[in-house]
């Protein structure tokens, strides 16, 4: 097993603890993210996925039970260098307009590197690379107004702003919801490139089972603030009863596999993507 970047064990968290409005978001959540892998965190709405994600870059600190160790640092300790942590863990939120705040795209993407105190040419270079990576050509888009961009373009700009920090762990909090098929495929390709070419780890938070089946190598399932399943993707996504109890469905392919099993046809392997299913069906039907 490769190096663990983030380890979370038995974490609990209550918002506004002690007040009338207290809300327990996590009660026994655990998560592992290793270097150089694409992992997924899934769960029904309200399961606590976003809350858990906010611990990864120190937006929240463990004050109740549980332990969070990120890049070797225990986040419960007082003098954690949060700024440094946020350089290594880039968090992209669901709605791009929540993240963009500069008037021009170039300035917004440059914000992170500027905060790092990097020299101007390096900032410019990072911005250029990040924008090209997300498919927003540098010259064409750097002087466009952020809030005049289309939804899809804003999403890319927000992502570029985080990529410009060259994080080692990229966390995408439901960041592909609402993207069209081409847009989604481009993001997926980008994530795979980041992992393969630059060793970036990715944590995808989603409840789109098809997307998770396509992308992830390891999956953690959250239900009502608790981790109920974790493991390799084929392993986790074939446990339909446990997933149903957690308020989740199966990937489309998973449902096909299950229906076929009910009809007496068992497919080899544990296909969860269309490609795997096609291959498995071909093997079965050919013989």
């Amino acid at each position, binding site marked *: 097993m490769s190096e663990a970047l983030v380890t979370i064990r038995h974490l609990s968290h209550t918002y506004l603890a002690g007040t009338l409005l207290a809300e327990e978001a996590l009660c026994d959540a655990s998560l592992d993210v290793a270097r150089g892998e694409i992992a997924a965190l899934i769960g029904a709405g309200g399961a606590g996925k976003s809350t858990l994600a906010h611990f990864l870059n120190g937006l929240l600190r463990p004050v109740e039970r549980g332990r969070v160790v990120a890049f070797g640092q225990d986040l419960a300790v007082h003098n954690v260098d949060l700024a440094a942590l946020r350089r290594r863990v880039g968090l992209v939120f669901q709605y791009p307009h929540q993240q963009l705040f500069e008037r021009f795209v170039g300035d917004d993407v440059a914000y992170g590197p500027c905060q790092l105190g990097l020299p101007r040419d390096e900032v410019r270079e990072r911005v250029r690379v990040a924008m090209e990576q997300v498919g927003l050509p540098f010259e064409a888009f750097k002087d466009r107004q952020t809030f005049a961009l*289309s939804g*899809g373009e804003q999403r890319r700009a927000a992502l570029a702003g985080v990529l410009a920090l060259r994080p080692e762990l990229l966390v995408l909090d439901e960041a592909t919801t*609402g993207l069209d*098929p081409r847009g989604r495929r481009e993001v997926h390709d980008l994530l795979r490139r980041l992992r393969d070419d630059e060793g970036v780890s990715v944590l995808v938070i989603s409840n*789109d089972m098809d997307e998770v089946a396509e992308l992830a190598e390891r999956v953690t399932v959250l239900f009502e603030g608790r981790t109920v399943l974790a493991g390799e993707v084929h392993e986790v996504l074939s446990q339909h009863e446990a997933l149903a109890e957690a308020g989740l*469905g199966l990937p*489309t392919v998973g449902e096909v596999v299950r229906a076929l099993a009910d009809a007496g046809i068992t497919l080899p392997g544990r296909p969860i993507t*269309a490609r795997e299913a*096609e291959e498995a069906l*071909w093997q079965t039907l050919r013989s």
Partner: protein
Amino acid sequence: MDDTTPQRSAGDLIRTAHLSYHYDVGPGDAIPALHDVSLTVRRGEYLAIVGQNGSGKSTLARTLNGLLTPTEGDVWVDGANTRDPAAILNIRATVGMVFQNPDNQIISTVVEEEVAFGPENLGVPQEALRMRVDHALRDVGLAGFGRRDPHTLSAGQKARLAIAGVLAMAPDCLVLDESTALLDPLARRDVLRLLGELHAGGLTIIAITHLMDEIIPAERVIVLDAGRIALEGTPREVLGRPEALEALGLALPPAAAIARGLAARGLGALAGVLTPGELVRAVVAAAGVRP
């Protein structure tokens, strides 16, 4: 329903002729969105309009109820032209529209007041209002939620509430502008099932989406690209052109993609399969043939 429901006539419900639209962004500067779109929507039809982001599908939706008037060409709803200010109220009561983000459509903090908003605007008499509200809530499966605060509803329930708000106006047609895009898979399934029920009850449905599995329940599909109609046909016909769809930024839904791959390898019996259910049945049949 009641005496206040408008009478329905037969024939085409909506017709567009050489419809073009561009957005004005400044002096002499315009963003083209639709080019020469001519289509008809029959009464009682279930039509899906798909396209990648930027293809013009939302713009097209907004011309169908007169929120946008064409820069060229015309749109007629039940014989009335959307440029006619005197007819616009009736047009919008005939063609109801539900948008993508339920939060930005919900005005009130009480469910039943929210649903009543539409018919109140139409001047429906007070006695009939209560009945309209109750029927609409029942139709979308939110009966009994009348006094709740919409803020406490789940995303799927809010989406259904938005639909109820439009149904209460007793429209002939429901246009859904990517109304399922922000929903989780289970909520999306609920909404699609609801649309099927409404369609079975006689409502014309126009679903705007880029999620390809949502075109399957439709009777007809129109694919837009850069403001023009690029493909048209039944779901089966449209999904039978995967290379064309790919070029248009779309993709086959998983079951159809698998079937197509297998058919290409020689298993002709699987050609034309669209849904997971059909795939399972076809595979069982194909396996049953073999010893």
